[in-house]
């Protein structure tokens, strides 16, 4: 399986960016964020892009718009996971810094999984899938190579 990263927002931002992880030839069926995002209606896309802007610009986490999970939740298994929300739509991803040597504060949210909200509680399946993909060495290399090429 091979992957690539596509920056959606914050291409030239010093501190943060939002990107989609893309599974080449759709080999990994769990990677759904980009395709689903592209097929959303225009209002939903604009709403998500607005939320990306807010997070990139450093606006505080508003749980109704976007948030992560801290150590107290799910025994701290998903502290690198992150979600953007609009109505029933959810874009799940993870946070990382592929530019540690250049910029220790840089943070990118790699969006991986799309889901529709079903219940009040987060569906842990989505977080498990994100975490599995986050820790995949091929994904890790794809992210690193994307930023190497950007240099």
């Amino acid at each position, binding site marked *: 399986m091979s992957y690539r990263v596509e920056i959606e927002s914050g291409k030239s931002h010093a501190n943060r960016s939002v990107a989609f992880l893309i599974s080449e030839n759709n080999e990994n069926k769990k990677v759904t964020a980009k395709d689903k995002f592209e097929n959303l209606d225009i209002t939903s896309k*604009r709403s998500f892009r*607005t939320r990306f802007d807010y997070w990139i610009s450093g606006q505080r986490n508003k749980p109704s718009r976007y948030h992560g999970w801290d150590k107290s939740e799910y025994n701290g298994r998903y502290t690198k996971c992150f979600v953007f929300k609009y109505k029933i739509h959810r874009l799940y991803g993870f946070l990382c810094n592929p530019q540690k040597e250049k910029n220790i504060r840089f943070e990118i949210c790699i969006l991986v999984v799309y889901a529709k909200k079903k219940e009040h509680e987060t569906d842990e399946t989505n977080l498990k899938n994100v975490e599995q993909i986050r820790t995949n060495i091929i994904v890790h290399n794809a992210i690193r190579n994307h930023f190497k090429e950007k240099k």
Partner: protein
Amino acid sequence: MNTHWTERSTKDFLFRIAADFISQLEDKLESTSITKNELAKKLGVSKGRVSQIFNNPGNLTLQKIIEYSRALGMKVSLVAYEDNDPNNIHGPINSDIFRICWTRAGKPREFWDLQKVKDEYKQMVNLAIPDRSFYTGTEPTEKTSSPVSQIKDYIPANTITPLQAEAS
């Protein structure tokens, strides 16, 4: 050139700045515990209509913006600005940043108040900077050379000094 998504169309730009406005209303509702139901009653519309506006601000008119602001005891201004980004690579500046800056400046109501802010700022700077030769370009005195070099380390390169602001 990689421009911001709001540069794709006027509707995209409008959506984003309208969303900023709605975000401010949401903050107000949160801080005052006014519900959307109560806001709807004040506006003489259904709660569903309010939710619709909050979820899709792209169709907000200036009239509605004023109505929604006033219903919450707020006012609204339109601000045109230049941010050295004429090609809109970085997107609009969040309207809440303008509000925060205005609040930090003591909420000046008129241009007279701006003069007061300027005078207070000058006084503050004069008290804070022991060696004004840093700004005048003359040689620093021996006594104050250490504090000046320390201050230089903390002042960003593009800072306009009070004397430069006066000259412009």
